């Protein structure tokens, strides 16, 4: 999404689209607890930080995760160490204690140099403890897309 022309801004922001999807998802929830839902996909937002260490961006992105949590949809990964390999070298914008794993590479990157995690998985609180998430983000496993594949296993 872009701000309207009158703002004079060239921003591109994705948190608005993620919030729109969160609103749509609410139609699947008919009880406070006990639902069994897996939500996954490319949200094009960042977890735990903002672009170029922007506190403003971090605050906007975090509101998406907060809204999902309010719907009893817990963020379950992928996150290191079980969820995949982390970026190497460590990206300047990424907090040193982040567990994020790259899921996307842009046109000047490759699977080997990917830095950002844009894909996320959420699970209902009622089943979240039975869900494991693995990012196939090694060079050998990445696959033919700019996003790697994410495997979600649910113990039934």
């Amino acid at each position: 999404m872009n701000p309207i022309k009158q703002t004079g801004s060239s921003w591109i922001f994705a948190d608005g689209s993620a919030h729109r999807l969160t609103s749509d998802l609410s139609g699947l929830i008919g009880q406070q607890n006990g639902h069994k839902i897996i939500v996954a996909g490319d949200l094009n937002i960042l977890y735990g930080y903002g672009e170029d260490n922007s506190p403003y961006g971090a605050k906007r992105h975090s509101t998406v995760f907060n809204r999902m949590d309010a719907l009893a949809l817990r963020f379950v990964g992928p996150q290191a160490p079980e969820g995949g390999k982390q970026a190497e070298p460590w990206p300047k914008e990424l907090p040193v204690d982040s567990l994020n794993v790259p899921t996307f590479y842009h046109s000047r990157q490759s699977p080997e140099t990917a830095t950002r995690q844009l894909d996320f998985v959420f699970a209902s609180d009622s089943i979240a403890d039975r869900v494991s998430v693995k990012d196939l983000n090694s060079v050998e496993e990445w696959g033919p897309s700019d996003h790697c594949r994410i495997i979600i296993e649910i113990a039934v």
Partner: protein
Amino acid sequence: MPNLKLLSWNMNQKVDNWQTVLDSGVDAAMLQEAKAPPEALADIFMIQQDKEAAENKLLWRAVAASIVNTDKLDFTPIKTQPFGGNDPEALMVSRPGTLDAAVVQVKR
């Protein structure tokens, strides 16, 4: 009973990537930027029937898919409708193609 195995993947609008979905060995998939499956694989996957998407007009389409003829689960796509629709069984999606859903029940 073995785990239920799902795939989430942004397919980058590549039709050939449906073969990779199949080769991933999962029970069902949550796909983004998905074109319609190629003719050779169309009968292998169960997805929402969507004429607009079949004509590839929705470049950013999200798709919930399952392998047909699996004896492990029952897969029922949830219908979607634009905002303001009045089908009580269909999920309202504010931008068609950006969200898809299905009910998955593991067979006992």
